[in-house]
């Protein structure tokens, strides 16, 4: 019983006929509870979402590489809570409760999450939001946000501090809830693509690829090979731009403006090259189901070759300057440590996971073309501090530079876009998992016969990273919070949906 693999356990349930590329099984309550008990240990929870009748849970088994979805029918608007056994599910279940009014039985924290009293979906009388208490001599609270001091997204942080030391940080998010999932219902595939590209603007390419792959999986079609390669090219440029931004921002929060300025120039160079090659600085709406919107010209190829040569040279100077500045390292070293067991329990993706021993990277763990034909490594360390998260970013920049070169060298010629079938028999379901700069982005969708979206759920990596920031900040001084926060750089918009 205990030694059943994920797929063996799931296959006792009924397989959904049109779910691709990974299987989906409708399971019994008993299996649901058994799965919940194994989460965070030998199974990673990769997503938890609902539709009108079911709760769906995406699962990954690291030992076998198996990936699947378990679905449980909701009875009388109720289902057994996952977070009762697996805390990382907490905010997702509070969200399901807010948006779908399904009640997770045994949910430990029944405060609303995205519902700030403005949701149409619920008609719940809203009580004042109660932050978790912290009491003791000399303990006091610092409320921060939703409008912050910098040019960043809105969210509320409630710090409880004793002197300079943070005793507890509690986040209150949901300020940028735009009702994206509700908006997606009934949209055609193209309008859906526009919305998914704007779930989190910094990851627009990765979201568009995940969405496109989900649509293509549902329709059992493949984009032309050239499209796969151009998508990866854009994704790596996006990763480079964001990593430059993040490396600079962490240095800036340690008052080391010099590296911020240099990293900002590199970032700007990437965006300008993207604009020259693809016609948009952030490459928004350049990836579409069926391929990519425009081709890369030979001229554009030249621009990118020159870009990566010049980046590589200047980037080494920045990496050296970071490594050899003791006063800067003094701030990042040993600050905001995320223990590997927490990263594993929360299935934390991206840089945050990889700086704390979790080697998951969708490009390797759930490989998609063209990454299965490219050479790159996924650097991992165990330290889990701010320095480790910078170090991983520095390494990933090098990997991405190499990937861009490999892609430019080998990108196949041919079509870059194909048409999608307009009508098909029966409902189809598809899924896409793509490695954005922040971590694995998951998009799940169900298409109606006429090609409209019945349901689409984009899951940002931030869902499993935000809660860890609370853990990481504890026992650090208030002044180190910006460093911890920037080294995480979670998305508010991607999380609040």
């Amino acid at each position, binding site marked *: 019983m205990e030694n059943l693999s994920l797929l063996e356990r799931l296959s006792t349930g009924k397989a959904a006929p049109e779910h691709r590329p990974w299987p989906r099984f409708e399971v019994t309550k008993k299996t649901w509870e058994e799965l919940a008990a194994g989460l965070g240990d030998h199974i990673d929870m990769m997503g938890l979402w609902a539709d009108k009748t079911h709760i769906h849970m995406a699962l990954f088994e690291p030992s076998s590489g198996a990936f699947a979805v378990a679905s449980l029918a909701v009875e009388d608007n109720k289902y057994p809570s996952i977070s009762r056994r697996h805390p990382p599910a907490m905010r997702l279940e509070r969200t399901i409760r807010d948006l779908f009014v399904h009640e997770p039985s045994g949910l430990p924290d029944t405060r609303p999450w995205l519902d700030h009293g403005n949701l149409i979906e619920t008609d719940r009388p809203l009580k004042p939001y109660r932050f978790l208490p912290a009491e003791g001599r000399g303990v006091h609270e610092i409320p921060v946000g*939703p409008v912050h001091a910098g*040019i960043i997204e809105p969210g509320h942080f409630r710090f409880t501090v004793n002197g300079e030391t943070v005793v507890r940080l509690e986040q209150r998010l949901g*300020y940028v809830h735009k009702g994206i999932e509700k*908006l997606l219902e009934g949209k055609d595939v193209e309008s859906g693509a526009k919305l998914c590209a*704007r779930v989190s*603007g910094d990851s627009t390419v990765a979201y568009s690829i995940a969405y496109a792959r989900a649509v293509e999986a549902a329709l059992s079609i493949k984009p032309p090979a050239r499209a796969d390669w151009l998508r990866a090219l854009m994704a790596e440029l996006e990763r480079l731009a964001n990593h430059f931004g993040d490396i600079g921002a962490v240095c800036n929060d340690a008052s080391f403006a010099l590296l911020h300025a240099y990293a*900002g120039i590199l970032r700007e160079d990437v965006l300008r090259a993207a604009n020259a090659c693809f016609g948009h600085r952030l490459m928004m709406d350049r990836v579409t189901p069926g391929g990519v919107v425009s081709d890369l010209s030979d001229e554009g190829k030249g621009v990118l070759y020159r870009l990566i040569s010049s980046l590589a040279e200047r980037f080494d100077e920045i990496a*050296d300057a970071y490594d050899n500045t003791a006063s800067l390292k003094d701030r990042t070293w040993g600050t905001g440590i995320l223990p590997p067991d927490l990263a594993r329990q929360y299935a934390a993706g991206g840089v945050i996971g990889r700086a704390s021993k979790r080697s998951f990277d969708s490009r390797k763990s759930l490989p998609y073309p063209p990454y299965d034909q490219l050479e790159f490594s996924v650097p991992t360390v165990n330290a889990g501090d701010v320095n480790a998260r910078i170090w991983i970013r520095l390494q990933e920049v090098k990997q991405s530079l190499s990937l861009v070169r490999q892609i430019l060298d080998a990108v196949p010629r041919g079509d870059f876009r194909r048409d999608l079938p307009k009508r098909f028999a029966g409902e189809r379901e598809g899924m896409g998992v793509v490695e954005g700069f922040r971590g694995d982005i998951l998009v799940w969708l169900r298409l109606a016969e006429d090609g409209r979206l019945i349901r689409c759920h984009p899951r940002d990596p931030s869902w499993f990273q935000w809660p860890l920031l609370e853990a990481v900040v504890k026992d650090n001084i208030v002044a180190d919070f910006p460093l911890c926060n920037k080294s995480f750089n979670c998305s508010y*918009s991607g999380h609040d949906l």
Partner: protein
Amino acid sequence: MSNLLLKALFRCPVTTDAPPVSEQALAELAVNVDSEARRVLGRSLSIREVDAGSCNGCELEIHALNNAVYDLERFGVKFVASPRHADVLLVTGPVCKNMRVALERTYAATPSPKWVVAVGDCACNGGVFADSRACVGAVSKVLDVDLHIPGCPPSPDMMLRGLMALLSKYAKNPSASAR
């Protein structure tokens, strides 16, 4: 790092010589700040950015205004940490209902004279989120907006031009347009 500093000493600035059209615009902004607007603002314009529900795309490009290439501060225009220090609110996003109160309070906390600039398609007309029941829509439904800068997101160049237009607008008639 000393190498990095040494190189910087002898290198030309990376700051953009703006493209033909906007070079004029940038120069005009500088001139306006130097002459007309000085009476009102003492050569500086302080901006408080408020994200009222954007996807963060606009924030990325607003950030870029501060980088060494666009270097907004050379025109005396800078971003400040508190609305109490601001002359201009730069608002992005389709005003999520959950952000409405915070936006109104930020506006109330900004001393007069003050101007509101809506940045990005979402702030201008709700963008792709216009039909959402979780959003109010255009910023102008909540605050009186003095200037719209459309784009998804607008490029730093377009934002520079927009800010220049704002300066020239109130510089001609400082008291009339301010609130």
